[in-house]
């Protein structure tokens, strides 16, 4: 064994980073769109343009170009669409939150979300940049599979701890120290995705091939079903203790999909969904709030549901808002999104639908679909199984979260309290989703750059 065997071969410097030039152009458009949105908000609500516009415009714009620069240096082959789409969604959310703030000032409501959101945007973009800089390869995450699981479960259950756990709007999803609150479940979804991907990569063979054959189907052995039962139980704990159907569905759905992708066996999906639906059904019988949600979902305009505490009032108002938007919307600043409770967070999609209309809704949904499809494409093209599962998991969790939230507002599924990724007010959600952006960029860069995927990369030191 000679010294040279552990020296990494220097990458060939690419003269034209084509991906990055596309990205630059798209970011340029994104910042222009953002400036236009802010100007429209100010003109329609305040009737004048103020310097506050720059306070909102400058940080996300500068930070996004900074990430772009870092990608040029550190990950020049990363997917060029992911960053601009994330920026457009994040800044569109900022514009709407700012617009709601301005409207709330007019109604003497002191609660302001915009300045907090802009700070969180900077924090989240910084963390995404750090992920790109300091995570030389996402494969190192594979070494921390079980650590990730512990972190994930700890984060998931943290709101149930006595001192720091907080209950807001009926769901126990927050931890808080003083005035500072955080929703750890958002970060848990990343940790758990890492765990699922790592765990399934090592166990996929046994999950796929073992078990008895009954009626032509291979039923997994109890030992292989074990982790599924654990995750199922964890999901139900979330459902019961934290009163949050959305989060519980999100984790379980994510796990089922990854098990399916890893093993190729549809039986896991069937068994998993049956278990989840049974659990949820039992829970809904035992817990009033779940059946209430379902009632409100089926008949939101029923007067009894509409008047009930925690009933369909919010959902009905959100739908009125969407309907008010019609095809073209009222224009940013032209609607009355304040009529819907939580217009800036859970119902931001109703606010946007009201002011941007069906056209805007389609644009937003298409952006998400594009974002998710880029993530799926990374999984599809990646030669390494862990990377495939990780990219798929992170993309799917975004897609599923969109579906649960937007589907809740548009009555496709019962309403649950999740945030719309990147759009909604809320720091924890923003941070988590930007980390996902960073990781996806990192994975996408590694597709074709000659890394050895058969083993976790070793970077030797002290060679030079």
């Amino acid at each position, binding site marked *: 064994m000679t010294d040279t065997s552990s020296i990494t071969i220097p990458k060939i410097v690419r003269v034209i980073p084509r991906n990055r030039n596309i990205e630059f152009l798209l970011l340029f458009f994104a910042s222009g769109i953002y400036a236009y949105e802010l100007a429209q908000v100010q*003109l*329609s609500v305040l009737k004048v343009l103020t310097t506050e516009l720059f306070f909102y415009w400058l940080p996300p714009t500068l930070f996004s170009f900074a990430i772009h620069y870092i990608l040029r240096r550190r990950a020049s082959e990363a997917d060029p669409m992911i960053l601009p789409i994330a920026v457009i969604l994040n800044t569109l959310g900022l514009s709407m939150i700012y617009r709601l703030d301005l409207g709330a000032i*007019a*109604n003497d409501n002191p609660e302001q979300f915009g300045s907090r959101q802009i700070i969180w945007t900077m924090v989240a973009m910084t963390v995404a940049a750090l992920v790109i800089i300091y995570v030389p390869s996402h494969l190192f995450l594979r070494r921390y599979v079980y650590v990730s699981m512990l972190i994930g479960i700890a984060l998931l259950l943290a709101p149930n701890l006595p001192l720091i756990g907080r209950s807001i709007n009926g769901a126990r999803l927050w931890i808080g120290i003083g005035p500072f609150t955080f929703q750890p479940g958002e970060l848990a979804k990343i940790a758990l995705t890492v765990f699922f991907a790592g765990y399934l990569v090592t166990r996929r063979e046994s999950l796929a091939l073992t078990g008895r054959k009954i009626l032509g189907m291979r039923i997994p052995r109890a030992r292989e079903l074990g982790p599924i039962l654990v995750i199922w139980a964890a999901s139900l704990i979330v459902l019961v203790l934290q009163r949050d159907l959305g989060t519980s569905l999100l984790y379980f759905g994510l796990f089922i*999909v990854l098990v*399916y*992708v*890893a093993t*190729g066996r549809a039986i896991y999906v069937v068994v998993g969904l049956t278990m989840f639906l049974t659990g949820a059904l039992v829970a809904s019988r035992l817990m009033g709030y779940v059946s209430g949600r379902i009632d409100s979902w089926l008949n939101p*305009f029923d007067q009894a549901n*509409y008047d009930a505490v925690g009933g369909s009032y919010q959902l*009905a108002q959100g*739908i*009125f*808002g*969407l*309907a*008010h*938007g*019609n*095809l073209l919307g009222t224009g940013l600043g032209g*609607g*009355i999104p304040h*009529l819907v409770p939580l217009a800036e967070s859970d119902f931001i999609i109703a606010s946007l*639908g009201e002011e941007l*209309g*069906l056209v805007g*809704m*389609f644009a937003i*949904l298409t952006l*998400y*679909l594009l974002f*998710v*499809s880029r993530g*799926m494409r990374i*999984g*599809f093209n990646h030669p390494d*199984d862990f990377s*495939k*599962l990780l990219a*798929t998991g992170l993309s*799917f969790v975004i*897609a*599923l979260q*969109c*579906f649960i939230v*937007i*589907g809740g507002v*548009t*009555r*496709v599924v019962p309403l649950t309290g999740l945030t719309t990724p990147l759009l909604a007010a809320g720091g924890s959600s923003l941070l988590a989703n930007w980390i996902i952006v960073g990781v996806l960029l990192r994975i996408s860069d590694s597709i074709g750059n000659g890394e050895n995927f058969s083993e976790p990369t070793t970077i030797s030191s002290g060679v030079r």
Partner: protein
Amino acid sequence: MNRELKRVSLVIFVMFLSLFIASTTIQIFAADSLAQDQRNVRSAYDSYKTQRGAILVNGEPIAESVRSDDVYQYLRVYKSPMYSSVTGFFSLYQGSTGIESSMGSYLTGKNSSQFFEQISALLSGNPVQGASVELTIDPVVQKAAWDAMGKMKGAVVALDPKTGNILALVSKPGFDANLLAVHSGVQSNENYAKLLNDKDGPLLNRAANELYAPGSVFKVIMAAAAVESGKHTKDSTFPNPPKFQLPGTNVFVQNSGEGKCGGKPTVSIADALRFSCNVPMAQLGIALGQDTIRKQAELFGFGKKVSYPMTSTASVYPENMDDAQVGLSSFGQYDVRSNPLQMAMVSAAVANQGVLMKPNLVENVLSSSLAVIAQPQPDIFSQPLSKESAQAVKEMMIGAVQRGVSGNARIKDVVVAGKTGTAQNGKGEPYTLWFTGFAPADNPQVAVAVVIADGGGIGQGGVGNSLAAPVARKVMEAVLRK
């Protein structure tokens, strides 16, 4: 794994497809019905955001939106309760009625005829200004009708028989629409409850939406049916007993004076109308048969809602009557019901040589730049009578006023045609008093109908000629004096 990834991608696509479909459903297909949900205040907010157009009479606003300093930006202001049955009200909390409702899309600027204004507003960023609605109401006639009714409950409708234009439309008592337009929900709800529970029914539109037994004014329709049938002329005669037993019953019909109708052994249809006799009318009705009468009544508008552009309540000529019921209905009793607008239409058709023009309250619609964006043209509603039949009925109605029991409608130097009615409403109940007619008979300028509910406050003490005819006379005079 790529095979599985493709399937997962398909699942993701289906999830998003359902979101696309759901948002399209809400924002396009269900949008209109959601906008009309009473709990959706967005539509109301919207209509306050743009300056709602004015409702004009003779160029003067009787309802307009003025700047207000609260979140709604504009307050709706009404000039006089005299017009409450015309304008209706526009309220954040109780919706809208009257012209405010039926012309609402123009007033808010949302009508498709304002498409280009909407586009230019979209481009300029200024809100669309609502269009103004100019009414056909003549303020002098309206005032005359309002004053003539005094404190009596009831309604007056005056039509131009040649065009169908409504010159006056009064319902008494009226209400102050400003009470409902207030921006305070508590105030508005309180005021609305008060008006709704008022036993005098100020919110009712008695001119077009309340039905009354027409009594003897229905005889005009009987006379029309008789001459139009071709079997009778105005001089056709019927036996003239003081009492007439309804077929198959022990009920006797009497004339109002409880005697014979004139001094002769037989009585003509013209004299039956002139003296307002019930006995010959009951015989005429049974002779004509209910189908013939119904056909005539429907040509005048019975059984139909009229959009003027508010919507009237359809007048009723009952179905499936036996001969006794046909007899009773022939002088406007039994279950026959009508409203003043309908009876004014009957007179207007007679006045206009048998051609009934569609009643209309809107002169034109003016955009904020004063361009005419809609102008209803006179339109034929039906032709209930031939020219000759109309002439015959007209002569009978002239007889009733000039030489008969409807004499209180007479105007000096003018030939007035008309008919009074005094409808009974059950034992001990106050009468419903009527007049319908037109003037001048040779060149009709106005057709009018008056209804006075609850006996005009004097129970069974008044008759159509004593209370309703003078009101009609004042209204006709107001038109003719111009």
